[in-house]
C-alpha cells in the first residue's frame, strides 16, 4: 500500500498540477500566447512531433558528441597532471580561468571559428567545454584519492611511477571519474542548449532553436512542447548514464 503510494505520489502531483492549470486557463481566459492550457500543449505536441523528434535527435547527438569529446580530452589531461606536479601547476590557472568564463561570452568566437555554415560544430565545442570540468576535476581528485597505506605498500615493494599510476592511481580514480562523467552529461545538454541559443541558426536545428523560433512567433504552446521534449531528453540521458555508472561501479568493486 505505502509502496504503491510512493510510486504514485509524483504522478499524482503532476496530475493535480495539470488539472489546476487546465481549470485556471479555462476560468481565467488567459490568452493562449501567454499561458497555453495543457490541452493546447498536447495539440502542439501532436501536430509538431516529427519536427520535435528530429530537433531532439539533433540536440542529443550534439550533447553526446560534446560529452565524448570532453571525456577524451579531460581524462588524459588529468592523467598528465597526476604524473607531474609541474604540469598540474602550469594547467591550474588556465583551467580555473576557463571555468569561470561564461560560455555565452565565448560563444561568438567559436561561431566565427567553426564557420557560419557549421553552427553545430561550434555548439558541440562549447558544450564540450562546459562538460570538460566535472570530468577533469573528478579524474584529478580520483587520481589523488588512493589509500595512503596502499601508497606505502607500493613504496615498500619499490613500485615504479608507471606501476603506481596503472595499478593504483588509475583504478582508484574510477569511481570519481564516473561521478564526473555523470555530472558532465547533464552539463553537456545544458551547454548544447545555451550554445544553440547564442550560436544557433536555422542550420543547427536543435531543440533550443525550436524554442527560440516559437518564441519569436509567440507560438507559446510550441515552446512548451519543445521544453517538455527537452526535459524528457535530459532526464532520459541522465538516467541512462546513471545506470551505466552503477553497472560499471558494480563490476569495479565486485558487487
Amino acid at each position, binding site marked *: 500500500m505505502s509502496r504503491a503510494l510512493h510510486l504514485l505520489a509524483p504522478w499524482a502531483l503532476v496530475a493535480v498540477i495539470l488539472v489546476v492549470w487546465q481549470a485556471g486557463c479555462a476560468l481565467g481566459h488567459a490568452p493562449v500566447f501567454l499561458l497555453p492550457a495543457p490541452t493546447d500543449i498536447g495539440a502542439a505536441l501532436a501536430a509538431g512531433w516529427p519536427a520535435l523528434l528530429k530537433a531532439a535527435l539533433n540536440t542529443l547527438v550534439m550533447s553526446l558528441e560534446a560529452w565524448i569529446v570532453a571525456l577524451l580530452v579531460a581524462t588524459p589531461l588529468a592523467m598528465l597532471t597526476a604524473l607531474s606536479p609541474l604540469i598540474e601547476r602550469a594547467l591550474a590557472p588556465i583551467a580555473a580561468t576557463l571555468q569561470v568564463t561564461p560560455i555565452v561570452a565565448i560563444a561568438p568566437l567559436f561561431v566565427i571559428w567553426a564557420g557560419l555554415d557549421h553552427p553545430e560544430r561550434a555548439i558541440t565545442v562549447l558544450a564540450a567545454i562546459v562538460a570538460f570540468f566535472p570530468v577533469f576535476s573528478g579524474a584529478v581528485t580520483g587520481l589523488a584519492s588512493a*589509500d595512503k*597505506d*596502499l601508497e*606505502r*605498500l*607500493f*613504496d*615498500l*615493494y*619499490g*613500485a615504479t611511477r608507471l*606501476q603506481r599510476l596503472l*595499478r*593504483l592511481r588509475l*583504478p*582508484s580514480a*574510477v569511481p570519481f571519474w564516473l561521478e564526473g562523467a555523470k555530472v558532465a552529461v547533464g552539463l553537456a545538454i545544458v551547454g548544447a542548449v545555451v550554445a544553440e541559443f547564442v550560436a544557433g541558426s536555422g542550420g543547427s536545428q536543435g531543440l533550443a532553436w525550436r524554442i527560440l523560433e516559437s518564441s519569436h512567433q509567440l507560438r507559446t504552446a510550441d515552446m512548451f512542447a519543445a521544453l517538455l521534449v527537452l526535459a524528457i531528453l535530459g532526464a532520459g540521458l541522465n538516467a541512462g548514464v546513471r545506470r551505466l555508472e552503477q553497472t560499471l561501479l558494480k563490476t*569495479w*568493486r*565486485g*558487487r
Partner: protein
Amino acid sequence: MIAALTAVEVDYAGRRALGPFTLGLEPGEIVALVGPSGCGKSTALRLLAGLEAPTRGQVTRAPGRGETAVVFQAPTLTPWASAEANAALPLELAGVGRREARSRAAEALRRVGLGEAARLKPAQLSGGMAMRASLARALVTEPRLLLLDEPFAALDEIARRRLADDVLALWRDTRPAIVFVTHNVEEAVYMAARVVVMSAGPGRIAGETLVDGPLPRPAGFRTTEAFRAAAEKVSADLDKGMGGGMGWGTGGGMGGSMAGGAA
C-alpha cells in the same frame, strides 16, 4: 640480528615523537610493541619497514625487495581486484610473471585459509577474511621480517583469537621475525616471546617482558601461570609508562610489586 633500530629519534614539526629508542630483532623472533596511543609504535614500525627515515639514529634492515612485509590495521586491499590479484601484487610489482605470481598468491591464500575465496573481491569478504587476504599478500614474498600494525584491532574477539593462532601457525612454517603493534596486553603476551612496552610523549621503552612458554601457544595457555605473570608485568610497565606525565603512579606501583612477586 635481522633488523635493528639504534638510538633512533623522530621529530614531527620540531617536536620529538619517538626516542631515543633502541630495538634489535633476532631472526624468527616475535616481538610485541605495546603502548598508549601516540607513543610512536607505528612510527617505529614504519622505520623498520623503511617507509620513513629517522631524524637521528640508525636503522638496520634487510635491503632486499620483499624481505620486509607490512600488514596494516585495515586490510588495505585494492577494491577492484580479487583476493588472488591482491595477494599477487608484491610479486607482480617485483616483475614476477603473471602466471607464477598468481599461482604463488593462490598458495598463500590457501595457507591463510582463503583458498576458496581467491576469486572474490574485497567487498565480498568479511572483515576477518579481508585481514587474512592482507596477511596472504604479506606472506607471498616469504619475508624474513613481518611487521603487523594493529592487525586485529577491527575484528571481534573470536575472530582476533582465531587469527592470532593462525598467525603463529604460519610463523612456524617459515619463521620470519615478527614485530606487531597492539593496544591489547593479553594479545601481546599470547603472541610474542618478548613484549616491549612504550611510554608516550616522546615514545621510549618503559619496560620489557620475556614470555615463558612454547610458540605457537598450546591450548589453554591463557590460563597458565606464565601467561598471568607476564600479563601482570606488562600491565605494570604500561601503568609506569603512562604514570610519568599523568600522575597515575599508584596503579603502576601496585602492578609493579605484583609482577615482581610473580617473576
